[in-house]
């Protein structure tokens, strides 16, 4: 396989991002607002001056950016009330109070967020602003017609980084899918857990004791369950050859039927269909704690030499593994439930951690779909690792040479929060 496969996509985004961030800088043209009407300012308070209205970029055509000149004398002004109506209406009732801006805040706001008074795309509005004193008396400034209407955009320029990252991800996943489908042999590193699985089966055979395999407590929709059933097939095949008894209790009825099929198939493939015991795979109960009680009872009675707990587990992980370790069995666990992993690690002899479970199943199953997806995700992890490595180097350079190149790299992946 090509060695430099990580570098290509990584370089791609490195080059694309700065180009786009330059293109993104906004070029807004100031439209002078036309003066329509002038009211005599009340002698009480000074009133705001020119109102400027701009279209807001990256919206659905429902926002306007409104700013205004603050009055010369701000004494006694408590806040500004901003009113809007559709341009050309003469009705005084048509004025809507759309925003109240405290006097000490910048004289700018985005209009249109209020669901009661929405801005419609393509409609021309006019504004007027009043200075308000502490008693709530309003002193109106002149009316200004907006110099522009709000227009919706087709593409949101602030989301380019997400688009690039998403596109790259989709590309990589499908690239490896296609590659796997074409039958290309792809390297997966051997996973230490698989070795332990084989060894544990051997140990049980030597001792002539059964093997217990719990395929998790979740449904068939869980990725961990699917991975576990793949591994079960492989384990059962080995067991069929050695003729060791197998016990597979199930909590989910659908998982039970699938597990039964998998084991039967494995015995067939091993050439020992006669050795298959139909009672070895069975449905126990759907109740979580009752399931544990049942399995624990079996462990104490049958004393299996090896226990496998592979799949999705919740709080019961602790109870199963505790009893298993007391019965003196070798225990091998694997799950993607992060909160249960510490308990498995301290009670079992070997634990497949998180993604290792998926990888083990892909490794054993050799199904192109699974391997392709795993490779695609690996490639993405490679890119992330590349970025972090570069960031680390830049960080060191920053400290040593007192530069700021890390900020530049960080900006490349920073996507703004506000729409």
């Amino acid at each position, binding site marked *: 396989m090509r060695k430099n496969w990580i570098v290509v996509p990584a370089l791609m985004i490195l080059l694309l991002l700065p180009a786009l961030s330059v293109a993104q800088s906004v070029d807004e043209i100031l439209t002078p607002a036309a003066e329509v009407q002038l009211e005599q300012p009340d002698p009480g308070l000074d009133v705001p001056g020119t109102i400027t209205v701009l279209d807001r970029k990256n919206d659905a055509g429902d926002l306007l950016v409104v700013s205004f000149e603050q009055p010369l004398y701000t004494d006694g002004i408590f806040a500004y009330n901003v009113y809007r109506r559709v341009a050309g209406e003469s009705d005084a009732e048509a004025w809507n109070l759309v925003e109240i801006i405290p006097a000490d805040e910048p004289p700018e706001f985005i209009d249109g967020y209020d669901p009661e008074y929405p801005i419609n795309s393509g409609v021309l509005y006019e504004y007027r602003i009043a200075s308000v004193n502490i008693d709530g008396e309003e002193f109106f400034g002149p009316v200004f017609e907006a110099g522009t209407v709000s227009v919706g955009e087709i593409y949101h320029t602030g989301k380019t980084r997400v688009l690039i990252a998403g596109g790259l991800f989709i590309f990589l996943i499908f690239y490896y899918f296609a590659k796997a489908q074409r039958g290309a042999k792809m390297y997966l590193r051997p996973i230490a857990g698989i070795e332990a699985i084989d060894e544990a089966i051997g140990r049980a055979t030597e001792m002539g004791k059964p093997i217990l395999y719990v395929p998790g407590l979740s449904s068939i929709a869980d990725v961990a369950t699917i991975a576990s059933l793949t591994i079960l097939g492989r384990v059962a095949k080995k067991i069929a050859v050695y003729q060791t008894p197998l016990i597979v209790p199930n909590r989910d009825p659908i998982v039970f039927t699938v597990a039964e099929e998998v084991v039967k198939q494995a015995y067939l493939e091993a050439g020992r269909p006669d050795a298959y015991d139909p009672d070895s795979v069975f449905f126990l109960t759907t109740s979580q704690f009752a399931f544990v009680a049942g399995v624990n009872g079996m462990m104490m009675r049958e004393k299996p030499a090896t226990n496998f707990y592979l799949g999705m587990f919740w709080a019961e992980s602790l109870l199963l593994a505790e009893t298993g370790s007391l019965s003196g069995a070798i225990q091998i666990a694997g799950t993607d439930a992060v909160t249960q992993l510490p308990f498995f690690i301290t009670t079992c002899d070997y634990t497949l951690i998180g993604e290792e479970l998926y990888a083990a199943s892909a490794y054993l199953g050799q199904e192109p779909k699974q391997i392709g997806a795993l490779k695609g*995700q690996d490639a993405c992890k490679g890119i992330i690792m590349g970025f972090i490595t570069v960031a680390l180097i830049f960080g060191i350079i920053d400290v040593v040479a007192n530069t700021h190149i890390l900020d530049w790299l960080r900006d490349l992946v920073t996507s703004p929060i506000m729409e």
Partner: protein
Amino acid sequence: MKRTVPLMIVMVGGILMMLQYFIPHQISQTVFAYYTDWTPIIVAFALVLGVGSLTRIHSHKIRRKAKNWQYSYAVLIPLFGMPILAHLWPESISGGMDSPSIFHFIFMHIQVPIQATMFSLLAFYIASAAFRAFRAKSALATVLLLAAVVVMLGQVPIGELLGRWLPETGLWILRYPNLAAKRAIMLGVGFGILATSLKIIFGVERNWLGGAGK
């Protein structure tokens, strides 16, 4: 009809919603508004699936007089009793001291204590496993247990009395090495979720079709 149409629905729906994120235009917003209006209605019906299978399992048990079949009534009676109570006295949904109702009583004084107690059983099991199963079998397991002990002492007031360094170290572990491990796992899980989404949207992963006839 049986396979192709659902796969099409998934693909069209998925791609549409993905693109919608990048398009601020009014049309895209309208599509999205319809989506947010409709989905809760559709998903509400999914509850029927769970209720249906519960009913099926337990009525089956009662009919066959399977082991412990009497307890199935303890599932079925509240399962249908609760909605009926709520329908007869709709104000009981809002609960509170002002309007005591059987519905609220069953929730507050049966459901809440049972569920809260169920999980607290684990405190006992952890204690027992601490003595009988948590082993420092290898260097890695030892590190895990040591970190756990420091964090456990650091989080409770008595840790403070044993030495200021305990809570400080506990917090340091949480803020730095723990963060590193969890972030790596989060990135891995994130990619896993994204890949699964893609597989479902583009019809590569079809497991969800299963269980409803071929």
